């Protein structure tokens, strides 16, 4: 076998110009990273595969008068609700857990820009699977009438779409924040699933806290997004809980990503 000693030369690259790598290219790289490992592929494939399964189960098991578009969406968004945050966590933590950050941040030294590219890529992928939930729900509702004599109501409205997109993106942002804060996949995933539930239990059981629960507990304050009846007061409470569960961990998280060392060996 004859091998080249050195690769073919390329056009010389200019030494003058804006530092680092353009944002659009970083987003394409991060999008590719979302699907180029088995872990990330399984995660997205899992979401994509579960959604139609849920539609079939509903068509078989749910009472005909419950076969409405709103009900279908409630169920088809469930895999996204649980798995999108994991996508957010892994897109950040894998750079540390797998130490690929050594390469990522050497090729693109502006870590803030890389973080934004990660968030943008996760957002695009998130929106794609959210659309999948809406489409699968529509297919289910269209089949519900002919197959089961289902109710088939399409009433949902722009507010319905807004509510579901919002609750799913808050989850994704929370995943990103937890990932940045902890930088270790397992720790971030466990914390993401355990801590909010501990909060819910505490606020539900501790005397005197129940009244203020919606200001502090994200699960409770976003529950109105599923009943599509958020009041102005409710939006404020949701904002407060989002600040606590998304912004509060994200701020030290961003600082950590910008400053912490990606260890080698």
């Amino acid at each position, binding site marked *: 076998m004859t091998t080249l000693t050195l690769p073919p030369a390329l056009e010389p*690259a200019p030494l003058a110009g804006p530092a680092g790598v353009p944002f659009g290219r970083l987003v394409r790289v991060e999008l590719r990273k979302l699907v180029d490992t088995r872990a990330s592929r399984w995660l997205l494939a899992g979401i994509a595969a579960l959604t139609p399964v849920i539609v079939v189960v509903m068509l078989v098991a749910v009472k005909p008068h419950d076969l409405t578009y709103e009900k279908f969406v409630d169920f088809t968004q469930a895999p996204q609700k649980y798995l999108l945050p994991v996508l957010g966590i892994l897109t950040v933590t894998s750079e540390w857990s797998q130490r690929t950050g050594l390469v990522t941040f050497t090729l693109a030294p502006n870590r803030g820009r890389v973080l934004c590219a990660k968030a943008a890529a996760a957002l695009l992928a998130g929106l794609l699977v959210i659309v999948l939930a809406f489409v699968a729900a529509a297919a289910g509702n269209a089949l519900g009438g002919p197959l089961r004599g289902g109710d088939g109501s399409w009433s949902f409205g722009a507010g319905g779409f807004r509510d579901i997109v919002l609750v799913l993106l808050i989850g994704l942002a929370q995943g990103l924040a937890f990932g940045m804060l902890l930088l270790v996949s397992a720790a971030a995933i466990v914390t993401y699933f355990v801590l909010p539930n501990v909060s819910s239990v505490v606020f539900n059981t501790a005397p005197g806290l129940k009244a203020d629960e919606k200001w502090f507990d994200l699960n409770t304050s976003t529950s109105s997004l599923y009943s599509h009846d958020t009041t102005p007061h409710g939006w404020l409470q949701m904002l407060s809980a989002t600040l606590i569960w998304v912004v509060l961990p994200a701020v030290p998280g961003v600082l950590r990503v910008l400053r912490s060392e990606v260890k080698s060996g």
Partner: protein
Amino acid sequence: MSASHAIEVSGLRRSYGSHTAVRDVSFQVRHGAVTGFLGPNGAGKSTTLRMLVGLTTPDSGQARVLGSDYRALPNPGRHVGVLLDASAQHSGRTGREVLALGAMAMGLPPRRADELLEVVGLDADEARRRTGTYSLGMRQRLGIAHALLGDPRVLVLDEPANGLDPGGIHWLRTLLREFADRGGCVLLSSHLLREVEVIADLLIVIGRGRVVAQGAKQELLAAGGTVVRGSDAGTLAAALAAAGIAATRTGDAFLAQAEPEQVARAAAAGGVVVLELRPAGTDRLESLFLQLTADDSRETVRR
């Protein structure tokens, strides 16, 4: 814009808590040569290289690559090829995918990945395997391919020979030699003197966060004086002293600061039978190196 040296490092310092990893490091690395960055484990090699490529911010001092701060370089992968840790790859990605991602980040077409696979001798089957299944030697080859992706003018490689078999080291030497002959700058670190001796033209020796020696390999290896052993150590010591030759004793041999002929004449004048006489060669560098290593292990014990 064009700098006289490819890499210029001055007064670099970096501490982690109470531990000072890099105390005061200054050196220059020129184009057209392979420069070895030699030091025992924990001497501060990796920290220095990380500061060079902007992964770690120095407490003081500065590092410039191609006349600018690494972080200010446009598309740095096209100018500086970096391999800091061959094992720092996502175990779930295939070898080819690692290179394809790198090419994408540098704005190069995907076929560039295939060109580099051929250069480092990873075949199609190996390229399709996930890096989690790679041996250390294969990871080093993949890492070197990644460093060469952007056709850079400067290569910064941390322990690239680690895990390569003798054939692999020979291949690496040929590759880096040709890279340097085309005017490229190579800075590679190693904790093994023998390894660097084989590959590098110039040496920078670092110990305990400081540069302790630097220069052309021949100079550093030649300026070692003469090793001499005689039939009677006491008489030989007296003979060398009488001839005005400075010498230090190691076991029953001496390291004399003079040419072999002068040493032999002094011994003859003193009536000593010479049993061994040779240029110290690598010994000085080696003893310097061993001393550094010993100092560091003492330090570890004290801590």
